[in-house]
């Protein structure tokens, strides 16, 4: 366990540095040092590093930590290895919130960047939270795990359909803004958005560390958890709020990013052969951020000047993992 954490931490440092150095142009460590110590003499490098690189790397780390923790909580809450922000339609709910906000009117464009960012985040979180509540309500009457996933996918389709209707009636200018957002991107996130996202995700992660013990009991059996003095209803509300906060704010600023939320918790459990949240939580954080940094590096297409949408890269990694989960859990999912 300790060795694994150490290895993942070393990998994390290496990948973070690589992510800072690579992009459409390669900036060597000495050039970065020059740019930071003498901004006036290296205006271009200084701009690239502070306005693009640093924010991109931080975004990759925050997304890579937040989405998988959110997915882990959903998998525990629904006792379903296939649950995740994207699969259950939570990300779609967040998209709907964003669409409502973006299409609400051109007058919003006049808002200050800070208010715009906060509004975007708030509506995305609200959308995520409402979908999460809806899916949870349905899950009370439907115990079958496959049906739950179908409900999640349907709720997602519903949100997408509503968004399409809104797109149809919106102005070309707003439409473009929204379509660019749906591609998902780690680059080009404003600094104020990076700050809000980092604060929200860090708060949620710190808070979720306090729930690790109770989540173990909740996952094993709800009634036993009650018997151990755990206030199960409060715990569930906390988990819903925290996972919606993370999935919502990340979707708001980085766009809908698929598969990371569902795949990473599963990889983590397999990596350390336990579902004990006290052990999986730190591993999920490290594995998730490493995976996002790798996806980011791949999306830069080394040597090329174009950037692949991050959503496609995560799907390339994530979709095979989800298929693997289905095959591995076939007996369970059939029940």
């Amino acid at each position, binding site marked *: 366990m300790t060795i694994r954490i150490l290895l993942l931490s070393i990998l994390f440092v290496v990948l973070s540095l690589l992510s800072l150095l690579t992009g459409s142009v390669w900036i060597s460590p000495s050039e970065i040092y020059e740019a930071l110590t003498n901004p006036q003499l290296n205006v271009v490098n200084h701009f690239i590093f502070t306005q693009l690189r640093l924010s991109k790397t931080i975004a990759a780390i925050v997304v890579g930590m937040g989405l998988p923790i959110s997915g882990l909580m959903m998998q525990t809450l629904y*006792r379903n290895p296939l649950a995740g922000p994207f699969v259950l339609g939570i990300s779609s709910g967040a998209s709907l919130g964003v669409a409502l906000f973006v299409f609400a009117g051109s007058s919003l464009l006049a808002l200050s960047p800070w208010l715009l960012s906060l509004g975007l985040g708030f509506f995305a979180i609200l959308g995520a939270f409402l979908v999460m509540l809806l899916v949870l309500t349905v899950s009370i009457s439907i115990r079958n795990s496959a049906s739950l996933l179908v409900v999640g996918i349907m709720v997602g389709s519903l949100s997408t359909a509503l968004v399409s209707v809104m797109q149809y009636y919106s102005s070309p200018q707003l439409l473009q803004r929204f379509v660019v957002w749906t591609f998902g991107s780690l680059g080009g996130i404003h600094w104020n958005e990076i700050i809000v996202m980092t604060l929200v995700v860090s708060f949620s992660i710190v808070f979720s560390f306090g729930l690790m*013990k109770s989540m*173990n009991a909740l996952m094993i059996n709800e009634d036993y958890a009650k018997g*151990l*003095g755990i206030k199960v209803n409060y715990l569930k509300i906390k988990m819903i709020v925290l996972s919606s906060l993370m999935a919502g704010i990340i979707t708001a600023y980085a766009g809908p990013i698929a598969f990371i939320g569902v795949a990473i918790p599963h990889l983590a459990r397999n990596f350390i052969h*336990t579902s004990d949240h006290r052990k999986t939580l730190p591993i999920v954080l490290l594995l998730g951020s490493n995976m996002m940094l790798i996806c980011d590096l791949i999306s830069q297409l080394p040597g090329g000047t174009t950037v692949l949408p991050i959503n496609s890269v995560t799907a390339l990694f994530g979709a095979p993992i989800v298929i693997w989960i289905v095959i591995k859990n076939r007996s369970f999912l059939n029940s």
Partner: protein
Amino acid sequence: MILETKNLSIGYSAKNKSKILQSSLNLKLKSGNLVSLVGPNGVGKSTLLKTLCKLIRPIEGEICIKGESLESAESNALAMVLTQGIYAHGFTVFDVVSLGRYPYTNWIGKMTAHDVQIIENAMASVHIGHLAHQSAMQLSDGEKQRMMIAKALAQETPLIILDEPTSHLDLVNKIEIIHLLHQLSRQHSKAILMVTHELDLAIQNSDEMWIMSQEGIQMGCPEDLILDGRLQRLFQSNQIVFNQDQLHFQRNHLLSKPIWMKSNSDGLAEKLSFQLLQKLGYYLEAGYKDCQLELLSNQTWQITKNNSVFQFENLAGVQDFLRNN
């Protein structure tokens, strides 16, 4: 007195109507006692357990644990073992048993050497110490039940409540689990309350029986309950009778055909031959000449029917003959 209920009513309450299953229950449970709660399906046994475990609210009345109201009692007042399955993929047996220590550990669940010792002792008392590092989902039903009992022991509560701890188990495991609970009530001087449908095992092992019917709960020592006929009344039906010689409930055979059984053999072969005859609907009538069964030895049976004589080497032969003639 570990557990005491005062004028307790139990049942389910929906929005504006409630269904009361039992009312005015005044139950008392002493430490060191194994108590079996028996009764027909649907009479409210599981509801009573769930109410005692705070999983559903009582409709009326009060529950006290060690003289303290259950509402304000700590989570280490009672431990439960339920019929529902557990979802413990990726947890070891040790992990599941250590749930019992959750009320005692800090926010991250850090266990002291003392906690680990208690968990190991709990696993040893139910004989699953060797399974500690196995995956909890790979255990057999009997081992899973032992694991949950170990979890309850690790909670170190004065009272353990179990809902049908022997359902889904084979006969050997049923006997072992009930015997284990009997031992635990003695060794750890705990009060143990279980719902069970294993009437014979309950009679043999429990210190007290609670018989639940539509009319309420009868409490007493199982032997007393049999002596004054209260236990028999629970299962009033033509299908079942209480066998006073063997002290257990059995099927009430419809006996219509006479047979004369003569035996030169030891007890077991004779008893089994008698049981077979009952199953086939025969009653014994000494001196009945038309149909006679004679045990010549432990391996030879001779049937004399209408002056013809047939010999058989096993009871299957006897059975075939009697069914077809």
